[in-house]
Every structure is written in structure tokens, then in C-alpha cells.
């Protein structure tokens, strides 16, 4: 006889019938009825109408029946809070039952009834149960405190349950200790600021003792809790490690991973020359390898964590390549992770075998896996220089298979190999070109186009090849379009005689027929570059590219450290910061690895710049532009009235960024490790502070004194090994200053600060060295003010709205000059904007604008509209002319802007709006 019979009654009037049965006198019948009710509940029927009848069955000495009624209560109490009170009496009574099973059951269930009214009745029974003589009841009560805290935190604090819970850490029974630790950790997690788990050496000792005696799960709770502790010195660290290492032999993978977490963290404290340090390193490898024989899901968790461990301490698993070889019957998620780790472990010593394996995988059938395997071959080539040649020939073999997606992946990685080893493997280009027609994925097409453009001089029919792509230009993805544009420009610079038509075609396609602003912008930049100065263009477009770095997709170090402290958790599986799992805004504790004793690792940010901003002298040789300008049918005659446009050769950096969207990631890698990409690159924060800058300008011109836009965080600590920088720009007495607050959020002392500005749109450069009193100890913050000047090299930044307009230098233009200039600027550079809801008359507007050095040159009235003609000049020498239409009674103004560099129009407009509305 099985329980399934309870599921079979589905006739009408069932509820009514059940009601009758529940109220039956016969115990057996009652029990049967409750089972039927639970069965209905299980299949999702609403049986809440039976609440009073079921609760009536609660007072029984039949444990099974009691459990079923409790189960029912947990499910429906929330929907029937008033009736749930009916059950309170029985609960309270059960908490004093002579049978510990029933006491525990009652206190466990009461905690699960999330009804406010019940909680107050829960306090007394809970207090008793926490002091119960039976450990089974105590361990259940300990968890109940966490439940209650979740419902009503204040109540738990007021009742002093937290202290009782802390006392339970010293309980004689290891299971009680484990549950108390679990409950406290849970509470501490949701209230990061409560100083609940103040771990001291005494409690540590208790926990470590309990660790040897409690169940596997209890061991995990305790280990996870230990991981939050920061030892005082290396000796304490070592003694904890010694007591935790036996856990590595536990049969439960979760215990092993939690132990690994503790060891990985505490190892940081150990001096590297200590014998024990080496022993520990050796002890870690075998258990990690054994995890790979666990169930596939556990293998997956282990592999994701091994990926982190390998990045942090590659030495642990460097000899274990073999165990990561993919097996035919591994699930796909395990296969992909193993591949990742294989690449990370690849070295000169094992590369031959690894390559053989990868080649094997590349002929499998699972498309995703094969693709990743092909990519892995490319990464090996980049990582292990000695193997590059073999990798390339393996890739060529794979291309010969003509399997479409294999060929495409291969071409993508070969492009990377070219970037790493220029002028070495170009002999394969012919083979690549044969497969041009089969490429249908944007990434592969873009890579192929890049190769053709880069090596145009060695490919006889480069122009034909590129032209063939041009036919369907508008159907291509942006990636391909951008790459094609760049490639054709490169081709033109290399073989100008035959490819004029082609370059004109692509420029017009990019600038005139495209809606994509990125493409248009890049098109214009090339166009202008080519038309003004082909030598500079050559220097920019064909500049030597930085080599791409060996290790790709490494996790950013601060994040890595944090993830190491969370080994085994979801965060470490997703490789996302733990804060990503916290709902709402309550604070998160960032765990960081403790600094190693004695040797303060050089984590100081002296490598402020990414080191890639190769300074090239701004060589402007405008005289040769004419020829080219003619070629391109451009009017190059510089207007007499305005200065030369800021098209200097100093655009090196920006232009390099432009050399192919597909290369962006490579560039990122080439520019050094991410944390070093410091704020002077400023591209990220500045876009946000653009308005602030304009506000600032307003303030400067006004008598009320200078206004200082609030500081924004430029560099979060997470991204720079604990160095946080927030700052803003202000102007004091005509000098632009950068005000920064530098905070050391790392565990170790920082020294040796330096700052370097990347080239930016305004030629902003520091006027003196940065003065930071060093060392900067942990948690200390200092205010730094750095005077800036604008004599640095000017560089156009992407995106262009980073242009910060500093309207300082003022030149009056005479009326005639204004008109001439206005006419001189081509009409396509004119842009119109509306400023809405502005209630100023034209004079007031004019005055206001003058305060930020926008000067009104002429004024006239047409059809009741005041027309103001204004001019301004930016610090970087860009002129802008404006016509402001003000109609009496109409709050909407119209601004027409004309400027040689139409890119700045938007910014100028924004400053107009900001000023006029202020």
C-alpha cells in the first residue's frame, strides 16, 4: 500500500468531505484525512479553507500526524494569520513536551511560520529551548534564532538572543556549535555592520576544536566562518592552516573546497621562504585534482574555482596538466572549463602534448567546444612563443579541413598571432585568402579584412579583395564596416596610385550613406586626416601597434582576491563580485586577502599610466596636404580668419583606438594590466562630469565665488588594488586644478605616488608633480590638489563628448570677420539646437553668456526675434560661432552653431543650456 492513493480522490465536494473526515472521532480516519489534505496541497490545490479543521488535529500524540499538521501550518499560516494564532498554544505546549523530538519539532516549525503575531509568543519557548538539556533541541533552537532575526531583527536584539547564540559557540556539543556558527554567519551576512562575528583567538580555538568533531555540513559552516578571520601574524596563520589541512582528506567535496578557501586566504600571510609554505602548496594540489572525479556539477564548481586558484597561484597545479584533458563523455560545461584551465597551465614544458590534445578536440563535433579549442590553439601560440610556429601550422591544417566554423575561428586567432609576432608568419596569408568567400561571421570577416589591410603591400590583389567586401557595405555589421574603412585607408596609404577610387568610395559610404555615428566619425577623421596631411595620416594609421599581451581574460586582481575569499560560492562560479548577489543597497563587506607579513608587496600605484601612451612629437606638416586635398576634391584652403584646425599629429593615441573596433580588446590587453589603467585616461569619469565642468565655468564668471562640482569616484577601489580616487576639476584664480581625494582601501601601505596624464582633448597636463605625503596607510585618505595647465599635447578623445570646453581665451571678432567666417564654414557643419523653457530676455542672456566668455558680436532684430551673433574659442583653439534666436514671449530659444569641428557642437550647446537655465 502506498501513499499514491491519496492523490486519486478528485471528485467534487472533496473539501466538504475532507472537513467531515477531519472532524471524525476515529484517530485513523483523521490521519488519513490529513494525509489527503497534504496530498492535495502537494499537487497545488488550495486547501486553505480547511485551516481550522486541520489545526484542530494538532493536539495529538501521534508524531506523524503532528508533523503533517505542522507542515500544513507552515504552508498556510501566512495566508491565514489570524487563525494561525489558534496554533500558538499547542506550539508552546509542545516546546515543553518530554520528548526532545517534539520540542525540537515545535521550535523548528514555529520559526518557519512567518507571521508577526506569532513571533512574540515564540520568544519564551525559544529562550527555554536554547538552554535545553538535549543538544538536538539546542541545535534546532540555534537555527531558530536566525529565522526569527529574519522576521524581526529588533525583537531578537531586544530579547538578547544574539548573546545566547554567541554563548552557544562554547557549547559542549559540536553540532550545536556548528549550527550556532551557521546562524550567526547568516545574521552577520544580512547585517554587515553588526559586529557579530568578532572572531578572536579564543573563539577561533573553539571553532577549530569543534571542526574535528561535527558533521560534514557543520565543518563547512565552521570553515566558511573561519575564512572571515584575519590572523594577527604569520604564526597564528600557520597554526590555523595546520589545523585545517586534515579537512582536505574529507570525502565531501564541499568540505574540501571550503578548506581550500581558508588555506588560500591564510597562505597570504605566510612568508614565502618558510618551509611550511612550500609544504602547504604541495598539499593543495592532490585534493583539487581529486575533485575532478566528483559528480559533474561538483566538478564544474571545482573547475571554476581552480580557474581562480591557477590565476592566483599558478605554481600549485603547474604539473597537473593531464588531469584537465577532456574526456569524450564529459558534459559540455566541464569540457569548456577544462579547456580554459589547459590554456592557463600551458607552458613550454607541456605545450607539445597540449597542442596535440587541442588538435584532437578541434576535430570533434560539438561546435562550441571546437571553436573554443581552435581559439585555445591561438592563445597557446601567443602565450608560449616557442610553440607559435607549431600552432600556426596546426591552425593551417585545420583550415584545410574546410569546416566552415573551424576556418573562421582559425582566422580570428591568426589575426591575434600576427599582432603578437609581426612580420613572421605572413607566408600563410595566401592560404587565408583562399578561404575569403566562406567567411560569414562578422568577427571572422573583420579579422580577415584587418589582415588584408595590414599586409596590403604583400597581397597583390588586396584592392580587389577589399573591393569585393565593399559591394555589400551596408549589409555588413558595424565591426566589419569599421574594419573595412580602416583597411582601405591603410591600403590607400600604402598604394596611393591605384586605390584612390576605392578610398573615396569607402569614405563616402561611411560618411554620407551611413547612420552609424561611430562609422561616420571615423570616416570623417580619416577624410580630414588624409586631406590635410598624408604624412601625418601615415604616421597615425600605419603606426606601430603595441604587441598584445600573453595572458588574456585574466580576472582583475582585486576581484580575484575577493573571489579567492569566496571559493566555493556562487560568486566564484560566476566570477562575479559577491556584491552582485546582494539585493538593494545595504552595504557589502569586501573581503580582501591579507597582505603578506613583512614584505609589503609593491601594490603602490606608481604605475599610474598604462605605459602605452607612446609620445610621438606632434609633427604637423600641412604644406603637403594640397596634393592630397586635390585628390580628394576637398577645399583645403584654410579660412584666413581662423587659426589652423587642431588636426595635429598628436592624435596618435586616439587614432590608434580607431584602428578597428575588433582590436579594442587587444588594445586593452596591450595597454597593460587593467588596474594600472588609471584615471588620467579619464575617459570614463569625464563623460559624467561634463555638466559639472560647465557649471564650473558658470561659477567662475559670476561674482558669487567659484562653484565646485562635487567629487565623483574616478577609480573605484575594486579596480585598483584598493586605491580609490575621487575627484573633480575646479578653477581657482584662473588656474585649473584637479582636486582629488585619494583613499587607501587596501590592507597594506601605499607609497610612491605619481601621476601621468594621457593625452586629452584640452591639452590638460599637470603643472607640477603630484604631492602625496607617502606612505599612505590603510584606510587613510588625503586631499590632493594638482594645478594643471593646458599646454600639453592635444588629443581627440573617443567618445567626443569628452571634450571639455574651456572658454577662456577670448578674441573679439569684428562683424565682417564673423560673417565671412560663418559663410566659410561648410553648411554641413551647422547644427541647430533648441533650448526650452528659458525665461530671459536677449540682454540678460547675452550677459549671462559673457560670464563664461561667450561674446556677443552683433545683434539684430528680425520679425520680433532678437538674433544674437556670438563667438567663442576653446582652450584647444577650436572656434565656434553661434546664432541665438530669442523671441519675446517664447521660452524656447534656438541656437545655431557652426564650427570647423562639428563634434564639439553638442558640448557647446550643453553649456549654453546650462548657463541660460542657471
Amino acid at each position, binding site marked *: 500500500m502506498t501513499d499514491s492513493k491519496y492523490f486519486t480522490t478528485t471528485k467534487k465536494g472533496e473539501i466538504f468531505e475532507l472537513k467531515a473526515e477531519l472532524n471524525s472521532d476515529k484517530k485513523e480516519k483523521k490521519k488519513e484525512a490529513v494525509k489527503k489534505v497534504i496530498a492535495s496541497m502537494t499537487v497545488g490545490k488550495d486547501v486553505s479553507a480547511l485551516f481550522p479543521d486541520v489545526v484542530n488535529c494538532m493536539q495529538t500524540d501521534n508524531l*506523524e500526524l503532528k508533523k503533517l499538521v505542522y507542515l500544513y501550518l507552515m504552508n498556510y499560516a501566512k495566508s491565514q494569520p489570524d487563525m494561525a494564532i489558534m496554533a500558538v498554544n499547542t506550539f508552546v505546549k509542545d516546546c515543553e513536551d518530554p520528548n526532545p*523530538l517534539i520540542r525540537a519539532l515545535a521550535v*523548528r516549525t514555529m520559526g518557519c511560520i512567518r507571521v508577526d503575531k506569532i513571533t512574540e509568543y515564540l520568544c519564551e519557548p525559544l529562550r527555554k529551548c536554547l538552554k535545553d538539556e538535549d543538544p538536538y533541541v539546542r541545535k534546532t533552537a540555534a537555527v531558530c534564532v536566525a529565522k526569527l532575526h529574519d522576521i524581526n531583527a529588533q525583537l531578537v536584539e531586544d530579547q538578547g538572543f544574539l548573546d545566547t547564540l554567541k554563548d552557544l559557540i562554547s557549547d559542549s556539543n559540536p553540532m550545536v556549535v556548528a549550527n550556532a556558527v551557521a546562524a550567526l554567519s547568516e545574521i552577520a551576512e544580512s547585517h554587515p555592520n553588526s559586529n557579530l562575528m568578532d572572531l578572536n583567538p579564543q573563539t577561533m580555538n573553539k571553532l577549530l576544536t569543534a571542526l574535528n568533531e561535527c*558533521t560534514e555540513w557543520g565543518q563547512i559552516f565552521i570553515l566558511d566562518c573561519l575564512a572571515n578571520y584575519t590572523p594577527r601574524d604569520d604564526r597564528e596563520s600557520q597554526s590555523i592552516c595546520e589545523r585545517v589541512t586534515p579537512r*582536505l582528506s574529507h570525502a565531501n567535496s564541499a568540505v574540501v573546497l571550503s578548506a581550500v578557501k581558508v588555506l588560500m586566504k591564510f597562505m597570504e600571510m605566510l612568508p614565502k621562504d618558510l618551509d611550511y609554505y612550500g609544504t602547504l602548496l604541495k598539499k593543495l594540489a*592532490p585534493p583539487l585534482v581529486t575533485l575532478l*572525479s566528483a559528480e559533474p556539477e561538483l566538478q564544474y564548481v571545482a573547475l571554476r574555482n581552480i580557474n581562480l586558484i591557477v590565476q592566483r597561484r599558478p605554481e600549485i597545479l603547474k604539473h597537473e596538466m593531464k588531469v584537465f584533458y577532456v*574526456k569524450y563523455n564529459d558534459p559540455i560545461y566541464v569540457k569548456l572549463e577544462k579547456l580554459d584551465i589547459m590554456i592557463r597551465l600551458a607552458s613550454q614544458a607541456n605545450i607539445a602534448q597540449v597542442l596535440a590534445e587541442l588538435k584532437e578536440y578541434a576535430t570533434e563535433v560539438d561546435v562550441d567546444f571546437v571553436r573554443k579549442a581552435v581559439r585555445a590553439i591561438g592563445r597557446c601560440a601567443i602565450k608560449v612563443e616557442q610553440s607559435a610556429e607549431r600552432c600556426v601550422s596546426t591552425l593551417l591544417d585545420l583550415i584545410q579541413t574546410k569546416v566552415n566554423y573551424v576556418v573562421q575561428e582559425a582566422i580570428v586567432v591568426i589575426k591575434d598571432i600576427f599582432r603578437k609576432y609581426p612580420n613572421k608568419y605572413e607566408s600563410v596569408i595566401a592560404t587565408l585568402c583562399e578561404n575569403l568567400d566562406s567567411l560569414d561571421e562578422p568577427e571572422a570577416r573583420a579579422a580577415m579584412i584587418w589582415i588584408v589591410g595590414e599586409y596590403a603591400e604583400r597581397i597583390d590583389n588586396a584592392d580587389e579583395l577589399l573591393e569585393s567586401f565593399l559591394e555589400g557595405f551596408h549589409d555588413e555589421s558595424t565591426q566589419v564596416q569599421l574594419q573595412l574603412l580602416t583597411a582601405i585607408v591603410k591600403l590607400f596609404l600604402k598604394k596611393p596610385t591605384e586605390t584612390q577610387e576605392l578610398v573615396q568610395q569607402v569614405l563616402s559610404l561611411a560618411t554620407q550613406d551611413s547612420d552609424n555615428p561611430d562609422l561616420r566619425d571615423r570616416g570623417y577623421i580619416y577624410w580630414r586626416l588624409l586631406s590635410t596631411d598624408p604624412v601625418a595620416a601615415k604616421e597615425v594609421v600605419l603606426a606601430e601597434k603595441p604587441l598584445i599581451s600573453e595572458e588574456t581574460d585574466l580576472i582583475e586582481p582585486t576581484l580575484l582576491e575577493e573571489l579567492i575569499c569566496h571559493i566555493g560560492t556562487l560568486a566564484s562560479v560566476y566570477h562575479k563580485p559577491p556584491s552582485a548577489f546582494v539585493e538593494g543597497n545595504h552595504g557589502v563587506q569586501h573581503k580582501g586577502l591579507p597582505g603578506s607579513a613583512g614584505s609589503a608587496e609593491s601594490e603602490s600605484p606608481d604605475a599610474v599610466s598604462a605605459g602605452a601612451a607612446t609620445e610621438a612629437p606632434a609633427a604637423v606638416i600641412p604644406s603637403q596636404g594640397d596634393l592630397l586635398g586635390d585628390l580628394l576634391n576637398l577645399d583645403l584652403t584654410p579660412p584666413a580668419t581662423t587659426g589652423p584646425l587642431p588636426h595635429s599629429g598628436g592624435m596618435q593615441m586616439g587614432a590608434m583606438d580607431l584602428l578597428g573596433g575588433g582590436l579594442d580588446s587587444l588594445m586593452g590587453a596591450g595597454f597593460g594590466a587593467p588596474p594600472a589603467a588609471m584615471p588620467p585616461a579619464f575617459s570614463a569619469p569625464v563623460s559624467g562630469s561634463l555638466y559639472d565642468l560647465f557649471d564650473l565655468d558658470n561659477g567662475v564668471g559670476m561674482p558669487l565665488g567659484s562653484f565646485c562640482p562635487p567629487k565623483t569616484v574616478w577609480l573605484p577601489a575594486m579596480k585598483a588594488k584598493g586605491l580609490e580616487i575621487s575627484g573633480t576639476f575646479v578653477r581657482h584664480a584662473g588656474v585649473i586644478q584637479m582636486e582629488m581625494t585619494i583613499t587607501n582601501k587596501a590592507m597594506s601601505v601605499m607609497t610612491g605616488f605619481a601621476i601621468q596624464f594621457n593625452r586629452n582633448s584640452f591639452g590638460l597636463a599637470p603643472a607640477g608633480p603630484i604631492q602625496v605625503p607617502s606612505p599612505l596607510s590603510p584606510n587613510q585618505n588625503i586631499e590632493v590638489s594638482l594645478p594643471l595647465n593646458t599646454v600639453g599635447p592635444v588629443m581627440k578623445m573617443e567618445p567626443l563628448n569628452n571634450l571639455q570646453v574651456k572658454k577662456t581665451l577670448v578674441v573679439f571678432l569684428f562683424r565682417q570677420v564673423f560673417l565671412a567666417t560663418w559663410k566659410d564654414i561648410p553648411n554641413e557643419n551647422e547644427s541647430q539646437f533648441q533650448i526650452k523653457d528659458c525665461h530671459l530676455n536677449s540682454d540678460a542672456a547675452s550677459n549671462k553668456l559673457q560670464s563664461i566668455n561667450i561674446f556677443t558680436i552683433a545683434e539684430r532684430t528680425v520679425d520680433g526675434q532678437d538674433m544674437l551673433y556670438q563667438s567663442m574659442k576653446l582652450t584647444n583653439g577650436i572656434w565656434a560661432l553661434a546664432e541665438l534666436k530669442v523671441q519675446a514671449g517664447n521660452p524656447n530659444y534656438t541656437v545655431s552653431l557652426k564650427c570647423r569641428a562639428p563634434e564639439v557642437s553638442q558640448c557647446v550647446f550643453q553649456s549654453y543650456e546650462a548657463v541660460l537655465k542657471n
Partner: protein
Amino acid sequence: MSVSAVFVLDLKGKVLICRNYKGDVDMAEIDHFMPLLMQHEEEGLICPVVSHGNVHFMWIKHSNLFLVSTTNKNSNASLVYSFLYKLVEVFTEYFKELEEESIQDNFVVVYELLDELMDFGFPQTTDSKILQEYITQEGAKLEVAKSKVPTTVTNAVSWRSEGIKYKKNEVFIDVIESINVLVNANGSVMSSDIVGSIKLKTMLSGMPELRLGLNDRVLFALTGRDKGKTVVMEDVKFHQCVRLSRFESDRTISFIPPDGESELMSYRINTHVKPLIWIESVIEKFSHSRVEIMVKAKGQFKKQSVANNVEVRVPVPSDADSPKFKTSTGNAKYVPEKNQVVWTIKSFPGGKEFLMRAHFGLPSVENEELEGKPPITVKFEIPYFTVSGIQVRYMKIIEKSGYQALPWVRYITQSGDYQLRTNT
């Protein structure tokens, strides 16, 4: 920290039974699970973690069931998967088979177990032998057990109850070594290791203290004192009854065993042993006409030993037909649903060599589907023999009543994950 709720779903994603432990994730979220899983499956990106918004599903599959846990916190993922597998283990011990029917047939006990196994997302007692002492399938028994205080649940020895009695006190020790081998198509051994396991069947009264002694070779290797002819155990895992700290300090394996069957310890040895059964294969595929297979199997172990129930599985194309076989010994059979030829040899003495030839027809129309390259797999069992040379020297059994108990030891070596890649 861990789990918000646990669900048992059928293959269509219908909830069979569930338990809400924390109430911080809407129980209706589970409705998103199956569609998401199907979507991932279609994209070929199946993954043990599925997320929907800030809810994360961690799941495993067992026969026709999905066991799914939900959470919206940064849970300990390894703990969750361990727990889900533990759930399978406990249910299987209770119901023999864990499948849709057994869940329905025993829903009352399932609820009781879910209540006992986990509290507020923290796993509690998960030892099925202990659970069976106070959660039973028949209510009638429960009345008797009712008054019993579950001391074992919270004892330091949480895996063995007191008062166990046997007429004859015996321990059966099985030393089982599984050989994992991965051989490349060109015949080079890519990886090989031994996964060993010592299993106990304990039939002892009272609370006996046991001490297991292994041969010196093994123990020396563990301490790293002798680098000579030793068995280098890469990693050893013990049942929770073994005192780990004692083992760490003096290498003594001492414990109070759980009653009945259990795995006392497992170990991994990473040695380059010769693959015990070596396979050479030539698979020639003539498109549109036929496939010819020649497989040679050689026993590379002691002449005195015999491998039993040897099974060599050779992949064939899915569109192959009209099989013909010739074997020097044993039987060859075509298993079309697995696209394999299975060659079985009941008894395979060491040092011997056998041959199997197979011939298949291929249709004239080429199969368009790309096929993978499954490896040849081999299964076997060699009794009275361990590759590593591990031996049980003694098993000391001390109980306060002072009874005499007999230990029995058996050795067996078997195939684990034994794969040989092929060229085609």
C-alpha cells in the same frame, strides 16, 4: 548562506514536491526554471547553474527527476550540490529507486525527511542509517520509536547508534581499485591513474574501536620518507568516522565504523601503470561501401591472474548495417542503439592476445549528420589483485565487551574510465 527552497520536478518541470526553507524567494520562480533550461539546451550551453533575475537555480538530474534548489544569495555552491546528491542518496536508501513514482508513493516520508535533512537552508543530519532510526516508513513503528531520544543525531559519533548486537562479529573489507586510462589515437597514454577504495561491511556489536593497518609500502609513501618502491598516494579521502587529525599526525587510520556497508577510504594514485588491457585497433571506413574493423586485445598483467567479464566496445558509424564478425575468442554483438560493437570475453588470462574482426556495410548515400569520434571503451574485473600493491596488514578490533571478531579481506581491480581514442 545556502538554499532557499528545494524542489523535486518531473521531466516536464512540474513540481512533484517542494519545501520552502527560508521564504526569501518566491516559490513561483520555479516556473521559470524549465523554460530556461530548455533554452540553454537548445543553445548547447547547458550549465548546472541557471539564473532568472536574481534567483539562481542549482540543479541535478536523477533518473526521471530534477532536483532543484533556489537561492538569491551568494550561496556556497559546492555545499548545495553536495546536499542535492546527498538527498538522492538518502531517498534511494529509503525507497530503493528514486523516481517519480517513489516520490508520490512516499510523499509523507519525503516531507518528513526534507524537514529533518535541512533547516533554514542549513543541511542537518543526512546519514540515512541514523535517520532510519527515527523516521520510518510505517507509522506503526513510529509509535515505538517515539519516546527514543535521537542521541546519535547530535553525538560526536553521529554515524553509529549504540546497542547494536550481532551473534557473530565480522568485518568484510573490500579493496577495489579502478583503473582510469586515456590513450591517444596514436597509442600514447595521455593519462592513467588508479582510484582505490576500501569498503567495509561491518557486522560488529557495540561501539568497537577499529584500527586499519596497511602494508609498509603504502604508509611510507604517505609520510614521504621512502622514495623507493612505494605506492605514491596522491590523495586520500576518509569517511567522516576516521579521525583525520590523528591520521595527519601519525598516519594511523583509527575509527568507530558505521554499521553495515560504508566506504572507509578512497585514494588516488597517479602512476604510469601499463594499461592492463591494451587495445590496438584499425578501423577503415570506405565511404559509400563498408567499414572494416580489426581489434586486438592484449592482457598486460600477471599470467596467474585472469580478467573476468571483459567487454570491449568499439564505435561504428550510425548508418552502418549488415554486421559480420569473426573472433578468436568470445562473442561480438552489434548494438545499433548505441552504435557499437560489443566484444565480450568471459575469461581473459594475463599475457594472452585475442583478435576480433568486424565488417559493416555503409549506405551509398552519405550520412549528412556529423558524427563525433567516440573512443573504444573497455570493461573488466581482475580478482585477487591490486595494481598498486596495497595490502591490508591488520584490522584491530577492540570492544569493551572483549569479543573476538574476524576481518575478511578481498581484493579486486576493475576498469574505471577506460578510453582509447580512435582515428576515425
